[in-house]
């Protein structure tokens, strides 16, 4: 220890420090290892996560005229447009399913993925102020976003469900659900995991590269066309099919459609690929996020 001009005072205080080797609640030390993620602490902050979810839901539609109705209007109008443009004008096949159901399903599940990804990708930038002042486990923010997006999804999904039941009761051809419908929650977890990990990865990178933010908004649109949302995977020629299947979202969307309508072009291997993809990207992105979280206040 360096003894400066005030060494005397320091020594005086050092002397008193000798009684302090008991248990401490918290130790603040320089940056620690890559895998040092405090899950227990995250659990302790679960109330915060839920309050963030509440804030997101309440704040989004608080000063709008139609309120939560927007959750319905947006997918309805988009479906309407898609039916006209892709279904009627471009005459793209919907794999034998009713057009409305086909597009609505695609839009509903894609919206969820997109919302997870875009919102979590803004974690650091949007919360810069808060992160600069108070400590809490930073992962609480993206996790809360995924949960609040899930609420929005469930509202939109109910719209899909009503439409689906309508077609089901009218025995419309091309709506033949099967047992894999039970896997639906699992597909949802896969979707959340992918959106979350892509989002926090981008969020970590944007602390260093601001221009990535501009890439996202059109990148996500490009990605939508690389996912069978407005077309079935069925119509892709073998030449491009494998490319589309490289996209881990593809097989989830197809599996979702298969479960509800019986039309979908998917194998277990494709799904397994998505699962592995999600696990690995989740693992890597959490590590990177955790790394950036500790240093980013010094860089911004």
């Amino acid at each position, binding site marked *: *220890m*360096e003894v*400066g001009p*005030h060494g005397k*005072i*320091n020594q005086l*205080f*050092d002397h*008193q*420090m000798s*009684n*302090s080797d008991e*248990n*401490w*609640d*918290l*130790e*603040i*030390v*320089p*940056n620690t290892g890559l895998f040092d993620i405090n899950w227990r602490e995250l659990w*302790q*902050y679960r*109330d*915060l996560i*839920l*309050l*963030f979810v*509440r*804030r997101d839901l*309440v*704040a989004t539609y*608080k*000063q709008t005229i139609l309120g939560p109705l927007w959750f319905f209007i947006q997918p309805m109008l988009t479906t309407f447009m898609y039916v006209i443009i892709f279904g009627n004008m471009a005459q793209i096949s919907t794999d034998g399913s009713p057009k409305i159901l086909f597009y609505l399903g695609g839009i509903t599940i894609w919206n969820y993925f997109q919302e997870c990804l875009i919102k979590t990708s803004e974690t650091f930038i949007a919360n810069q*102020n*808060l*992160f*600069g*002042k*108070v*400590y*809490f486990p930073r992962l609480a923010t993206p996790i809360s976003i995924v949960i609040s997006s899930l609420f929005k999804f469930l509202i939109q999904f109910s719209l899909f469900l009503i439409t689906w039941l309508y077609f089901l009761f009218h025995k419309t051809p091309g709506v033949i659900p099967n047992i894999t419908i039970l896997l639906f929650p699992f597909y949802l977890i896969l979707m959340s995991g992918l959106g979350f990990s892509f989002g926090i990865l981008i969020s970590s990178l944007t602390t*260093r*590269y*601001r*221009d*990535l933010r501009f890439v996202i908004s059109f990148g996500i649109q490009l990605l939508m066309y690389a996912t069978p949302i407005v077309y079935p995977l069925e119509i892709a020629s073998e030449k491009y099919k494998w490319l589309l299947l490289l996209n881990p979202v593809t097989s989830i969307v197809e599996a979702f459609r298969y479960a509800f309508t019986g039309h979908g072009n998917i194998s277990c291997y494709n799904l397994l690929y998505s699962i592995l993809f999600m696990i690995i990207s989740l693992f890597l992105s959490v590590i990177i996020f955790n790394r950036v979280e*500790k*240093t980013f*206040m*010094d*860089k911004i």
Partner: protein
Amino acid sequence: MAKTVIHFENVSKLYQLGEISTGTISRDLSRWWALSRGKSDPVSKIGEVSRKGPDKELWALSDISFEIKQGEVLGIIGGNGAGKSTLLKILSRVTKPTTGRIRIRGRIASLLEVGTGFHPDLTGRENIFLNGAILGMRKNEIQDKLDEIVAFAGVERYLDTPVKRYSSGMYVRLAFAVAAHLEPEILVIDEVLAVGDAEFQRKCIGKMKDVSQNEGRTVLFVSHNLASVKSLCSKSIFLKNGKLEYQGETDLVINQYLNNQTQNQSEFYFEAKENQEAYLTSLKITDHRNQLINSFLNNDLWKLKIGFHANDSIKNLVVAVGILTSDNILLRSVFSNPFQTEMGNYEAVFIENDIVYSAGTYQIIISLSINNHVIQQIEDGIFITFEETQLQHSFIKTKNKGLILNQMKIEILSV
């Protein structure tokens, strides 16, 4: 002996100055491309030789060691850039130290800036819960405290109104109330008292005293307001350029800080104000031999020599001197008799020949007025320091015996 609740051990923080990366991928790529072909960095600024060097680094804190006992209220003072906020940031875990470690006993909550984490569209009640949770409270804890928080902040009527309709005062009160009722073992407070009305400030100071003395909690308090540091904190630390300059009893630390700030300047020159009828030109603080000095033993004789310029012949010109304590209490004001000037330079000499001030640093204010109308007043950066001596006719120590130490005429008679 009280338990140590915060223990700083050789804590340092290094900041990399300048740009760490260029901030965009395209520029990073073009730099990498140019450098890899042996060309010069297209992004570097002209005249910049190397991107990394000793001058690109800043030790915002270096080798800070101290400890705080349970129930203590510690003041942290220091100029701008002294490292106060870095210290708080490390303590509140917003950033990590570069070296060293801090050990903490108990829960720590910081009230760094008012309204952090408040969402304008949410109601007061919703924000209390949100803010409490951000500060690390569980939901049921907040529920238990809700009534108390609301009563302390005085926002009962507006509890279900979105906080964006709150006045700034209500905002501050609510934020402080949440943090103060959090029952953390350690409360970190940075400059919140700057906002809010006087009554609320008193309430806050009272609450903080209460929290530390009656509930045994520890408070760290950062403020530019030396008076509130003095009234709240038993001990203080003084940071300067990232180093712990001085620590100990608050009074001593504040004096050190003031001494340090003035850099013992005893001669001041002021800007000419040609558009005024008269203006102050200089101030010299001297001893009775006219030597420039601003630090005296408290029974020394001292003089203020105030130079001024009159642009015209002026009637009823008055030169005045004020003396403030470090608590900002105006201890004394002295006015010259009104006098008449011709155009030219003058010097007014104020000689202290009577009053003995208690040891400490005092601020000097000088002013010029014409016909009871103040035309110029200078109150920044002029300080005078008195050190303790044994008074000639007294055997009593001068410390804590009041601000003015003169004897009265005392007669003792047998009756």
